């Protein structure tokens, strides 16, 4: 029996567990494996890019501040501090992507180079034979201030083909980092023209933690990675930081997948695979969206060739069944059963081109505090109608974890939630 059980192991779940632990709750985290957080590329945004683009249209200057609706929730910031290795600058960051774009972000993994403070200065793009790394093309695409710098970055032959993560792991070795810093120093010294103010490298700077600061100190100028394909070092660094922070906060971790949540004599009962169960006063579901696997798309096509189903089905389902039916919804309302046996025609979902992209909106219905029903919370990509971004996962997770811990505290001190009616949300600081 614990105070709070958190299901999931992504950004939202981590934020919930750490925030609940800060409230002195006993926390168990049910880790179902890799999710979107491990695949993300290290940029931290508050708004999805369609909205961000629309917001910038309204702005007079394309270089103005990003349209973040407000300051980052202090509980979210506390989680970031506990994780370490992330930057949330006051002014929006400008990150370089291997798609040839300098794009804005609210924050970033500390391994990435933020070029916003370097406006107008010469930035070197390190040339090396890594897959998909075309320094000349990037320099041309990112802007006038970028120049190609020739440096020896690869030390062994296999590094031409090694996946980003494996390659980055080599820089966790202090010796290797020292070797690299010398090569970069030489390269900067021999580069002609006006002085180089910073260096952009392919994703390569460590997976235990970001080695960008260390490298920058040794080279004598800011060095950092460009943002690259999913499954790269930034996601691995998230996992390492999460593991360290959860352990430091004393969060117990169970490796399992949850299948069902029921309410039993004022407690939440989570059924885990392998026949185990976890009991808690309050529960946070942070199982992710489609990518994390918390919501599944079950289209009519998956069953067409067998006999017709006797009943209509909702084309989405949550991997964790919640007692009392599906809590999934969209546009603030429960998801309706479609009229035909075949379900919603997927093309009518018009995903992902419509602004109101349904697959990005379907999720568990929760209020502004993340509450689904008394003592039950949802956070991150799992939540309906919320932006599927890193910052949202962080803030919603922190909020849900804090509130869950307080509910649990209330429950333990005798104020049964069921009688409190649940409708009145606990006052927030």
């Amino acid at each position, binding site marked *: 029996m614990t105070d709070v059980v958190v299901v999931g192991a992504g950004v939202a779940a981590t934020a919930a567990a750490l925030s609940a632990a800060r409230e002195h709750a006993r926390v168990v985290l049910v880790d179902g494996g890799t999710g*979107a957080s491990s*695949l*993300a*590329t290290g*940029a931290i945004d508050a708004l*999805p*890019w369609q909205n*961000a*683009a629309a917001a*910038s249209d309204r702005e007079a200057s*394309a*270089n103005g501040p990003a349209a973040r609706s407000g300051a980052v929730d202090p509980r979210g910031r506390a989680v970031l501090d506990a994780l370490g290795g992330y930057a949330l600058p006051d002014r929006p960051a400008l*990150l370089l*992507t*291997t*798609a*040839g*774009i*300098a*794009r*804005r*972000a609210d924050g970033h993994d500390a391994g990435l180079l933020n070029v916003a403070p370097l406006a107008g200065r010469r930035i070197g793009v390190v040339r090396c*034979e890594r*897959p*998909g790394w*075309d320094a000349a*093309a990037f320099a*041309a*695409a*990112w802007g006038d201030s970028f120049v190609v710098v020739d440096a020896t970055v690869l030390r062994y032959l296999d590094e031409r083909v090694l996946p980003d993560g494996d390659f980055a792991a080599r820089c966790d070795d202090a010796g290797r980092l020292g070797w690299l810093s010398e090569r970069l120093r030489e390269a900067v010294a021999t580069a002609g023209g006006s002085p180089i103010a910073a260096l952009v490298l392919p994703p390569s700077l460590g997976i235990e933690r970001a080695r960008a600061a260390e490298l920058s100190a040794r080279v004598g100028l800011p060095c950092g990675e460009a*943002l*690259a*394909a*999913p499954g790269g070092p930034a996601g691995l660094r998230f996992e390492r930081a999460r593991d360290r922070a959860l352990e430091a906060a004393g969060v117990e971790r169970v490796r399992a997948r949850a299948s069902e949540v029921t309410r039993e004599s004022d407690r939440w009962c989570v059924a885990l695979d392998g026949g185990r169960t976890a009991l808690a006063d309050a529960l946070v579901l942070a199982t992710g*969206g*489609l*990518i994390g*696997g918390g919501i*599944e*798309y*079950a*289209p*009519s*096509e*998956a069953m*067409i*060739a*067998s006999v017709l189903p006797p009943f209509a089905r909702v084309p989405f389902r949550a991997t964790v069944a919640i007692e009392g039916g599906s809590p999934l919804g969209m546009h603030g309302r429960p998801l309706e059963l479609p009229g035909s046996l*075949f379900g919603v*025609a*997927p*093309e009518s*979902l*018009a*995903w*992902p*081109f419509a602004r109101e992209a349904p*697959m*990005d909106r379907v999720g568990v219905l929760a209020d502004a505090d993340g509450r689904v029903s008394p003592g039950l919370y949802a956070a991150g990509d799992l939540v309906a109608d919320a932006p*599927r971004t890193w910052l949202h996962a962080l803030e919603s997770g922190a909020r849900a974890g804090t509130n869950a811990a307080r509910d649990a505290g209330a429950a333990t001190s005798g104020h049964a939630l069921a009688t409190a009616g649940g409708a009145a949300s606990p006052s927030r600081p």
Partner: protein
Amino acid sequence: MVQGESVPPPVSLPPLQRAMPVAEEGLATTSTDVVVVGGGVNGVGVARDFALRGLRVVLFERNDLAFGASGNSSGMIHGGVRYLSQAPHVTESSCRDSGYIQRIAPHLLFRLPFLMPIRNGAMGRIALELIDAYFRAYDDYQPLKRGEPHCRLDATDVARLEPGLAGTLLGGITFDEWGIDGARLCVLNALDAIENGARVHVHTTVETIARAPGGDGPVRYVVEARDRSTGERVCVGARVVVNATGAWSPVTASLGALPQARVRVRPGKGVHIVLDRRLSNYGILSEAIDGRQMFLMPWQNVSVIGTTDDDYYGDLDDVHATSEEVRYLVQGVARIFPSVREARAIGTYAGVRPTLYEYGRNEDALSRDHRVVDHAADGAPGVYSMIGGKLASYRMFAQELCDRVATADFEVTVPCATHTRRLPGGEGIPDATALAVEHGLTPVAARRLVYRHGGRARRILERVARTPTERDVTCPCEPVLEAEVRHVIREEMARTVYDVARRTRLGLGACGGMRCAARCGQIVAQERQLPPSEGGRMAREFVETQARARVVAMGPAQARQEALALAHLRSSLGESRDA
């Protein structure tokens, strides 16, 4: 106006009898012998034929080469087996022409053995006898296209050849056909036309066809076209205009105020589902619940299920499959090949056939499925429309038109050479394995490269030799080398990420462009000296269009992949920052 009883008319208003407008003096800045409207297989086929006879040709294509039916067909070069009983001479000429296409583009064809299982039903034995006899007659023509004779199989043989078949079978018949990449066929024809002096404008739409001021000189018509991305106008004077716009033909005719009814086609929409691998080494014929024939066939490195045929009166520039159609096809094929249920669909594509309107109603239309319409009868001598046709008979169709026009309008007597002269890359086709060793490529990459480019694969690898970084694999699914992407932009008129995909199959594999679209956009922008944001926009457009084609066939696993592709795009392209 009396309409046909069985097929609803495409337009409800009676055609207006307008006269073709006369162009302003001095509008045409250049002149040519022939303007071809449409860059499908018929348009490029005609352009090549004219060019090889020494005539000057300008071709306009509204979208990209092979954007319409030609790039969205089932990709079969068949021998006209269905004409065998009524018009065996059509079967013979179809088979002979299939042989010619093999001769001019040997690298582009692949053998496609078909298996027609016969169910053990009431009529089973009779059906088997009849079909056997029918294909015995077809065997006479098979040598013309290097086809193997058919085989009659008993149930055990069928089960051994294809264990995936379900139901109790009496036996089956095999017959031999050939597959082709229709988009590449179009590109190669266009290239050869260009190499023989033709000019080809892609993404350029014809807006009006007008009479030239001053009548019947070498220039009788002025064709006005507009580049759809730059907005630039191109006006060309010509003696002959060929409307080769397939399902768009009536629309094109109206651009010259010609009666639409004369070029009416029945627009039959057909969809295909692409599965991620070759499920069988045979094309398998099956019947839908309503008795319509459909197939599951191995096609290049994937399997394709096809196809439907429904009247279509929607936007021809935006044809796509619906989940209803996908369901119908999967259900039909699953009856005979149940494991398609578990197979992974990675996409769909759709096209509109320009079927002859009166097809099946009169003898002439029955014996051949294409026709040249001479608009002299509408007061526009020298304007022709090509109606109907097949990928398999494009060369013959082009020859028919060119033979007629060369003598009637130009007094040119140079004989047709399109069946003897090889298409670009059709000569000196290298051995893929040797090429792989020589250039340090994976054998798969080399084989795919040689399939697409034949002898010209060497040109692409010369790029690699000059710039070793171009050995980078831009699209790992297909796979496509960076050098090939650059080659098709420089040498094959690709202007967008989608155009590159049409020519190389980049981004059409399982990952839906997640791993290659952004990089490809970058290369396109670089090669065409566009702002990088333009490359990003093209990549986004490509992935989103592909997503829409996939979503109708999407299972849970694909939904995840789709979400991942979108997230990747969001994070790497972000918002466009180029002011």
